[in-house]
């Protein structure tokens, strides 16, 4: 399909600016970018006064195929991603069964092609069953299509095993994505440890659990000279450790999630299970530090850690509720709130959703609006006001703390791999 996008303000990372340009998309590629395109096209989209951005890339999400398709599957997950402007989503291996062998990797790739909406890329497990005992066949899995490796949900506790994983990843030119949490310190924990957890009578998960894990992993990354990516950073001190490591020249990258940038532990209020997440929401100081870290570039990108849960897993007393919140649909607009509060430069935000994750994952064909790149394009209307009501939720699950939030700015159109999958705020699928 040939699509021309006319008159939009196109994100230009080279000049760090927005330039009004027309874009021509054909055969799944961005074919031409010019001041005025008058080529024939099957569809012409007017983007006057709107932002034209590279399709967003989520390094960390959970689509629960196989195992919990009732909570989310690749189809509902894709639709949810599209609503949020995501055209590439990396899915974590904590499925049932886990993605810990080449066969499962191929299954993910196959399913992504079948659903044929966005590009769903598998992250393979580091250890078999994510048990932290034996390495997976990382080379074969890489060959089968993994973009990285993670035991997400678990931290690789055994330092020697972690060292081996890092060393092995070196030859595969891939990244180890680490969920940093010393579980012995967070046993039975329900929220961030502090005055608030004392008041609510909930078992605390101290920031220290994340920090000691980060410190160990940074040391091992230095030792092995491998590429380490720390995911869902939630603490100020963790950020400081990573900053120092980067200054020392370590090959470490880091992402955080929108909820850590906009909420703090008080969002739990009167035991709201939709604020129960791991790592937990932290203090206001942590939140402010993370915003600062994103703004200054220490934090490379934003991931959603989109974690769908069925009502049985969330509609209960706090202690019994599962950790996790969905986030694909609200991620960018939450970031945009920070832009409007002038806490972060708009291009910096956009880069953290596109250019940077593409670089980290080694996806050379996307992340920028450039001729020859994959046609992953998002058109964003910064003015439209909307409320995230229950009816707006696209995901199969509804566990979000942002229900009822007012947003200014909304993704209007999405082109994924050259296909127009959302037009005028509506998924194209609905029309068929």
């Amino acid at each position, binding site marked *: 399909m040939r699509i021309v996008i006319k008159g939009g303000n196109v994100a230009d990372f080279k000049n760090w600016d927005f330039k009004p340009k027309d874009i021509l998309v054909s055969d799944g590629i961005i074919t031409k970018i010019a001041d005025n395109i008058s080529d024939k096209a099957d569809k012409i989209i007017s983007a006057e006064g709107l932002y034209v951005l590279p399709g967003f890339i989520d390094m960390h999400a959970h689509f629960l195929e196989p195992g919990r398709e009732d909570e989310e599957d690749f189809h509902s997950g894709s639709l949810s991603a599209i609503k949020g402007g995501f055209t590439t989503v990396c899915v974590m291996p904590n499925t049932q069964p886990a993605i810990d062998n080449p066969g499962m990797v191929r299954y993910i790739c196959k399913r992504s092609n079948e659903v044929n909406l966005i590009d769903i890329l598998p992250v393979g497990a580091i250890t078999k069953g994510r048990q932290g005992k034996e390495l997976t066949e990382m080379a074969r899995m890489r060959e089968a299509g993994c973009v990285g490796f993670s035991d997400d949900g678990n931290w690789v506790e055994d330092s020697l095993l972690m060292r081996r994983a890092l060393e092995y990843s070196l030859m595969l030119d891939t990244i180890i994505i680490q969920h940093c949490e010393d579980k012995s310190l967070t046993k039975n924990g329900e929220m961030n440890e502090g005055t608030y957890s004392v008041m609510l*009578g909930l078992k605390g998960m101290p920031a220290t659990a994340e920090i000691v894990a980060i410190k160990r992993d940074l040391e091992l990354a230095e030792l092995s000279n491998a590429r380490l990516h720390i995911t869902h950073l939630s603490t100020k001190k963790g950020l400081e450790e990573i900053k120092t490591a980067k200054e020392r020249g370590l090959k470490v990258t880091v992402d955080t999630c929108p909820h850590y940038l906009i909420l703090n532990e008080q969002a739990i209020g009167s035991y709201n299970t939709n604020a129960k997440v791991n790592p937990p929401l932290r203090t206001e100081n942590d939140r402010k530090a993370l915003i600062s870290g994103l703004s200054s570039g220490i934090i490379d990108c934003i991931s959603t850690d989109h974690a769908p849960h069925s009502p049985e897993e969330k509609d209960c007393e706090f*202690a019994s509720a599962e950790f996790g919140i969905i986030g694909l649909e609200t991620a960018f607009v939450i970031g945009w709130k920070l832009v409007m509060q002038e806490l972060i430069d708009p291009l910096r935000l956009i880069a953290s959703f596109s250019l940077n994750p593409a670089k980290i994952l080694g996806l050379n064909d996307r992340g920028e609006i450039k001729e020859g790149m994959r046609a992953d394009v998002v058109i964003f209307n910064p003015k439209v006001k909307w409320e995230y009501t229950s009816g707006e939720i696209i995901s199969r699950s509804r566990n979000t703390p942002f229900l009822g939030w007012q947003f200014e700015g909304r993704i209007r159109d999405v082109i994924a791999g050259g296909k127009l999958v959302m037009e005028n705020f509506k998924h194209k699928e609905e029309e068929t």
Partner: protein
Amino acid sequence: MPESLLDKQVKWSRKHLLGLQELEKEEIEYILELAQAFKEISTRPIKKVPALRGKTVVLLFFEPSTRTKMSFELAAKRLSADTVSFAVSTSSVQKGENLKDTARNIEAMSVDIIVIRHSASGAPHYLSRCVSAGVINAGDGIHEHPTQALLDMFTILENKGRIEGLKVGIVGDIVHSRVARSNIYGLKKLGAEVILCGPSTMLLSEFQNLGVKICYDLKEVLAEVDVLNVLRIQRERINENLLPSIAEYREFFGIDRKKLLKYARPGLLILHPGPVNRGIELSTDILDSGLEEKGICSLVLNQVTNGLAVRMAVLYLIAGAGGKIEDSN
């Protein structure tokens, strides 16, 4: 209606009693004042008033309890309410039914008040969002046990005449204690100074942010306080490496004759929420007879009596709150 004809003021409008943290000072004082009137009922030949006649009170106890459950049951019965008791070991929860469904099923039988004790902090808050009955928290996890703190304060008031300006010590496993938290909130609202005492593993420094003092030395605390609330120590804490042994706890934090004689102020009141581990946190002789030489009383049984009066007051208020139509005389 003209005010003088009514002779009453609106002091309680809450549908639930979930904790003391959210209550105003005046609301707490109101409950204590009301409890005074209810105490008299248990001294009559017919220990019953028809105030809650026709109301159904369900006791939903997911954690074992003898005295609190019995206290609430008796309080409800003395107000002429019908009571139904739900003990988790014999219930459908064993078959995997969750809290929400349990509550909904009970409510489908039109009950007015649910008294809940649960091991998860926040369970009563969650329950109050699921049902339309009034909810009373009889202890949720390590969060709050409001009626216990109320009866503790009632007992202190009865014996000391005031709470404002008093120094109240709480000794024991503070970090795991809902009784401690509720007492902290209640006592502070009424103007007392609260000092927490216990092993440093059980006494997080964050408690200071609640406006209380912390002290690891029982001797110092005994020398300062007018009232001492002694908490129960659980043996499980040894398995969690919070305590090396019961013996060590007894030696440094157990209340006994020797320590009281040497360090305590005369006239000290001793409270304990029960059940008491005799000879561990509180010695048998002190529990049963206090320390005469120093005028130190053990008020544990008074607490039980007062618990009944306080719970009657609370049931009365929760049953009435949410009433609609104008007064008729």
